[in-house]
C-alpha cells in the first residue's frame, strides 16, 4: 500500500512537470515571443510601442533571457508562490487569482458535491428500477444533460427566472459572508448549469455500473443467501459499482473547471474561468500561463487523491 502511494506520488510529480512544459511551450509556440501577441492586440486598439519601450518590457518580464532560463525562473517563482506580474493589469497575478479562486472553488465544490450525490442516487435508482418510467426519465434527462450547451442552458434560465418570472438575479456574484440569502439566490442558476452535465455523466455511469455489478455471479450468490433487496443493494452491489465512479471523480473535477469557464462568463461571475477568458482577450500571457497551470495542478492533485483512495474501495489493488 505504502509502495503504491509512493509510486503514484512520483508519477504525479512527473505529470505535473509535463503539464508545466505543455503550458509554458504552448504559449511560446508562436513566432516571436509572448509579448508579440500582446503588442499586436494593443495595436489593434490604436496604441503602438516604440522599440525602446518593447525592449524595456522584455527585460521587465525576463523575456530577454534564454527560454530554458525563463522556464526555470517561472517554475522556481511558482514554487515560491510568485505567479508573476500581469502585463495588462500590471499587478501581481497571485493577488488577482487569490481574489478569484475562492469564487470558483465555492461554486465548484457545491457543484461537485451535488453532482456526486444527485448523480449517483439517480443512477442507482434508474438501475434498480430498470425499464420502468423512473429509469426512462432519468436516462432521457442524462442524455440531455450531456448534450446541452451549458451557456445556452444559462440563457434559458436567465430568460425564464431572471427576465420573465423575475425571481432570481441574472448574474453577478456576492460573497455569502456579505449577504447570504442574496448570494444563495445568485448562485442557483450558475450551479444548475455547472452541475447538470456532471449529474448526467455520473448518473449514466452509476446506472451502467450498477447493472453490470447486479448481473455478476456474486450478486446471484447474495440473492441465493436470502438477503433482502436492501442488503443486496447496499452491501453487495453499491460498493462494487462505486469503483468506476471513483475513477470518474477525478474527471468530474476537470469538468467543473471546464464548466466554470462558460458558466462564469454567462453569469458574469468573477472567478478563474472568466479571468482566463479575459486573459486570452487581453493576450496577457502571464495570466494565461498561471491560470491554466493552476487549474491543471488542482485537477491532477485531485486525481492523485482519487487514485490513492481507490485502494480503500477495491481490496484487489491494496496488495499489488
Amino acid at each position, binding site marked *: 500500500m505504502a509502495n503504491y502511494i509512493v509510486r503514484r506520488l512520483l*508519477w504525479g510529480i*512527473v*505529470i505535473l512537470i*509535463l*503539464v508545466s*512544459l*505543455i*503550458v509554458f511551450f*504552448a*504559449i511560446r*509556440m*508562436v513566432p516571436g515571443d509572448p509579448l508579440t*501577441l500582446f503588442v499586436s492586440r494593443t495595436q489593434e486598439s490604436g496604441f503602438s510601442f516604440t522599440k525602446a519601450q518593447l525592449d524595456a518590457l522584455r527585460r521587465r518580464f525576463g523575456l530577454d533571457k534564454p527560454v530554458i532560463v525563463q522556464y526555470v525562473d517561472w517554475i522556481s517563482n511558482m514554487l515560491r508562490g510568485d505567479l508573476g506580474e500581469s502585463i495588462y493589469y500590471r499587478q501581481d497575478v497571485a493577488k488577482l487569482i487569490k481574489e478569484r479562486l475562492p469564487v470558483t472553488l465555492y461554486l465548484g465544490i457545491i457543484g461537485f458535491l451535488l453532482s456526486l450525490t444527485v448523480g449517483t442516487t439517480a443512477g442507482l435508482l434508474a438501475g434498480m428500477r430498470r425499464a420502468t418510467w423512473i429509469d426512462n426519465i432519468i436516462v432521457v434527462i442524462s*442524455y*440531455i444533460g*450531456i*448534450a*446541452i*450547451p*451549458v*451557456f*445556452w442552458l444559462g*440563457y*434559458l434560465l*436567465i*430568460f425564464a427566472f431572471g*427576465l*420573465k418570472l423575475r425571481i432570481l438575479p441574472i448574474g453577478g456574484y456576492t460573497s455569502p459572508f456579505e449577504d447570504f440569502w442574496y448570494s444563495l439566490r445568485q448562485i442557483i442558476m450558475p450551479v444548475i448549469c455547472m452541475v447538470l452535465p456532471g449529474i448526467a455523466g455520473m448518473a449514466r*455511469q452509476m446506472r*451502467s*455500473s450498477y447493472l*453490470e455489478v*447486479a*448481473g*455478476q*455471479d456474486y*450478486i*446471484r450468490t447474495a*440473492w441465493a443467501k436470502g438477503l433482502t433487496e436492501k442488503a443486496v443493494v447496499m452491501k453487495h452491489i453499491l460498493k462494487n459499482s462505486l469503483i*468506476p465512479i471513483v475513477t470518474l471523480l477525478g474527471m468530474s473535477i*476537470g*469538468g467543473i*473547471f*471546464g*464548466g466554470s*469557464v*462558460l458558466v462564469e*462568463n454567462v453569469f458574469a461571475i468573477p472567478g478563474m474561468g472568466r479571468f*482566463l*477568458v479575459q486573459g*486570452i*482577450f487581453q*493576450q496577457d500571457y502571464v495570466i*494565461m500561463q498561471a491560470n*491554466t497551470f493552476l*487549474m*491543471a495542478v488542482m*485537477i*491532477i492533485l485531485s*486525481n492523485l487523491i482519487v487514485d490513492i483512495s481507490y485502494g480503500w474501495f477495491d481490496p484487489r489493488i491494496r496488495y499489488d
Partner: protein
Amino acid sequence: MADTIANIDQIVQSQSRATVSEWQRFVRTLTQRKVVVFALIIIALTVITAIFAPWLSPYDPNEKNFADSLQQPNRKHWLGTDLLGKDTLSRIIWGARTSLIVGIATCLASAILGSTLGMLAGYMGGVVNTIIMRFMDALMGFPMIVLALLLAGVLGNGMQNVIIALTVANLPGYTRLMCGMTLAVKENDYILAQKAIGSSNLRTLFLHILPNSFQPMIIMISTALGGIILAEAGLSFLGIGLSHEEVTWGGLVASGYSYLSTHPMLAFAPGLCVMLVVFSFNILGDGLRDALDPRLRGVL
C-alpha cells in the same frame, strides 16, 4: 440471473448465426431503439443542411438589411432577424456547416494522429511508451475546453486553429485506445508466429491491429464528435477561435444575449440545434456500441 441470461443469449446467438447475417443483425440491433432512428434522422438532416447550405438558406447569412432589423419570426424570416437584419434561419443553416466541418476534421485528425502515437507507444514499448503515455496523461490534466482555449488563444482566430486546438485536446482517448489494442495484439501468439516467418513489423502492425480496433474506433469517433461540436460551440460562444465572419451556432447564441427578453429566438434556436446534434451523435455512439460490441458498455 445474468449468468443464465448470458448463457441463453449465447445459445440463441450460436444458433441464429446461420440464419441472420452479421450485417442484418447489426442493422436490427441498431434500429431496434426508436431514439437511435431519431438520432440518425437528425444527423442525416444536419449533414444535408451543411452540404447544401448555399441552396437551402433563403438569404445570404451575412447580408445586412437594416430595413428588416430585429424582426420577430414571420413569413419572410421564419426565425426572425438580428440587429443588422441578418436572417436567423440562414445563419443557422450555415452554422451547421461550420459545426460539422470543425467536428469531422477534428475527429479525423485526432483519430489519425492519436492512433499513430498509440500504436507507436504500444509497439515500441519502453521509453517511447512512457514518454507518449505520460504526455497524454498530462494532456488529460486539462479540461478539454481549457486546453482548447489556451491553444486557440495563442494561435489566434481561424477555423484551422480551432481544429488544431480541439485535435490536441482530443488526442489522449485515441492514443490510449490504440496503445492498449497494440499491446493486446502484440501479446498474441499469432503475431509471434508472423515474426517467426519474417514478415515486416509495419505490415504486422497494420494487418492485425487495424481490423481489431475498427469497432472501438468507430464507436469512439461517433461519441467524440458530439463532445467536439459542444466544445466548438463553447469556444465560439466565448468569442475565441472562430472569427466573426464565420457563422457559428455558439456565436449566434452569444450575440442573442442582448435581445433575450425581446427576441429570445435569436439565442434559443441555435442553441437547440447544438443540443439536438450533440444528443444525436451521443445516441448514435451508444447505439453503435450496443450493436457492434455490447461488451464495451461502460468502457467507452
